[in-house]
């Protein structure tokens, strides 16, 4: 360039004098610079966008279904909806090869009411809405009073199911009597038919109607509850599927409840988690059914209130305080 400078100088002067030519070069240069700036800006912007969209590796600990603790990048988590039809069908079918059975030891019940609270918490019920009732019993004037928790008996010959006109309440292969609140029309035939008064009716909007809005209905938990339908004890069918004891059974502080599978001839105490042979437990303690003369064949056994060496009003005596 420098070599050419001397030779081209007169031309340059000429050109600089020429207004049109200098404007053209100016615009030419301006165009190049402008295009470069635009391209650069676009590149920076694209880079910024890419940085934003890039996964940020923020890990979340997740417990898998088979109890393994794994880490997953936060942005990789996808919320999935439960397969509603499948969940509903497995709720109707029940668990194959099981026959759930509950044993209630009346000798140990002190009306601590923990079972009731756990049940109401799980099924979103008000403090005066019961799936389990605890009744104060006295056989005669001269015998000692005792408390009797009374959940649904999950009869093998359920009169409540027979009267349902819409197939909303049903018995499953594992013996649990459930109710589908989405089918129930609120006729309350089942409430009238049940000899154990185990069913309740939602006269008012359920307790957590706002919080449960949009939640998928779980037939094995009866949540969200629905106004104008019947609700009842479910033997905590959702917990059994996970291999856990029902809410009431594991909440009892006094070892009243035993729960297990009749096919395995074993029941586990909810408080001590000790496992016993069902047939032996019933034989040794003289287990019995409630109102067997009705032919309802309940799945709940009672052990008689023997050797109760504490006051009936002493609710906390066994809490080892």
């Amino acid at each position, binding site marked *: 360039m420098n070599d050419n400078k001397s030779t081209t100088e007169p031309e340059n002067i000429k050109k600089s004098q020429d207004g049109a030519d200098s404007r053209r070069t100016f615009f030419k240069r301006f165009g190049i610079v402008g295009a470069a700036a635009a391209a650069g800006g676009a590149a920076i912007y694209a880079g910024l966008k890419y940085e934003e969209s890039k996964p940020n590796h923020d890990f979340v600990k997740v417990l898998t279904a088979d*109890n393994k*603790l794994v880490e997953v990048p936060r942005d990789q988590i996808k919320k999935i909806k439960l397969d509603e039809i499948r969940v509903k069908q497995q709720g109707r079918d029940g668990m194959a*090869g099981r026959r759930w059975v509950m044993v209630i030891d009346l000798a140990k019940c002190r009306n601590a009411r923990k079972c009731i609270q756990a049940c109401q918490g799980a099924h979103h019920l008000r403090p005066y809405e019961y799936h389990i009732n605890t009744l104060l019993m006295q056989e005669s004037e001269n015998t000692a009073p005792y408390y009797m928790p009374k959940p649904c008996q999950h009869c093998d010959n359920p009169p409540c199911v027979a009267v349902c006109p819409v*197939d909303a309440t049903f018995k499953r*292969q594992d013996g649990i009597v459930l109710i589908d609140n989405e089918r129930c029309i609120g006729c309350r035939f089942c409430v009238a038919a049940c000899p154990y008064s185990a069913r309740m009716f939602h006269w008012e909007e359920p307790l957590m109607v706002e919080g449960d809005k949009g939640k998928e209905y779980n037939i094995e938990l009866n949540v969200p509850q629905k106004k104008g339908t019947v609700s009842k004890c479910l033997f905590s069918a959702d917990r059994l599927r996970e291999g856990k004891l029902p809410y009431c059974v594991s909440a009892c502080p006094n070892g009243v409840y035993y729960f297990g599978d009749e096919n395995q001839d074993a029941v586990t105490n909810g408080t001590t*988690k000790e*496992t016993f042979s069902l047939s032996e437990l019933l034989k040794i303690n003289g287990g019995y059914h409630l109102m067997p003369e009705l032919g309802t064949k309940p799945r709940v056994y009672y052990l008689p209130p023997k050797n109760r060496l504490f006051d009936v009003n002493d609710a906390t005596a066994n809490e080892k305080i």
Partner: protein
Amino acid sequence: MKRSYLFFLFIGLFVIRAPAQEWIVPAENGSKLSPFAFSDSTRMAGAVLYNLNCKSCHGDPGMNNVVKLVPLPPDPASAKMQGNSDGAIFYKAAEGRGTMPSFKNTLTASDTWRIISFIRGFNENYVQEIAKKLAPGASFEQVKLSLVWMQENNIIQVAVSALKDRVRQPVAGAELKLFVKKYFGNLPVGEVQTTDNKGIALFHIPKSLPGDSAGIVRLLAKAVDETAFGEAKADTSMAIGVPVYRPPLNQERALWNVGRKTPFWLLFTYFVCVLAVWGFIFYVMLQLRVLYKSDSINKS
């Protein structure tokens, strides 16, 4: 005068009440120590166990998100929990009180110690004291249990062996427990048995032991003394039970069952009644037709 009397009575009641709420741990339990040193691996295992068994009430340690129960479950990172000795935490978790469940039948001693190691991870000032190693010869390494089914006399034979001087040798005098695994817990079979000089203990199996539909039973054999034998156990399935098959409870035809399981007597009665009503209507129609025909014949 009378007021101050009431005041002292009130204070007096509190003084009497206060120790009643304290959870007193027997001295020999309170001084118990973990048989192994707490490390990152025990803390990791403890975290998993904590989340499964404790978190639902005690919340996340240090986050103060415990469930509002009466009495309030303490946060594991709090001074109230950390003020306990290792042995005291172990005792309270194992025994339980009131709403705190007992874990002695659900968690093994080693798993409970792992949870304690996880809890201690939230205490910077904690220095662990490890239980003294048992005298040489009193603890065993690489303990193995094996189960053999002796069908002719209904006995399960459990053989215990351990490494000693780099040679696998039978262990005599080991106390063993045998369980059958059930859906919610382990059912003990018979009493605790002690191994003989050949390292063998025998458990009599009841003849009516129910198995699944093929008679398969899951057996679990464990050493009672975890400090000497570690977590040695044998977990096997064997076809030693009585096959149990009971049909599903909603299989029979009954009034309460679904439409396609209607009882035959109901189907019969229903169809007879329907046929009778329709039959009567058809009969009347037929008679009317006969009358009409005879009338038209008469007219012609």
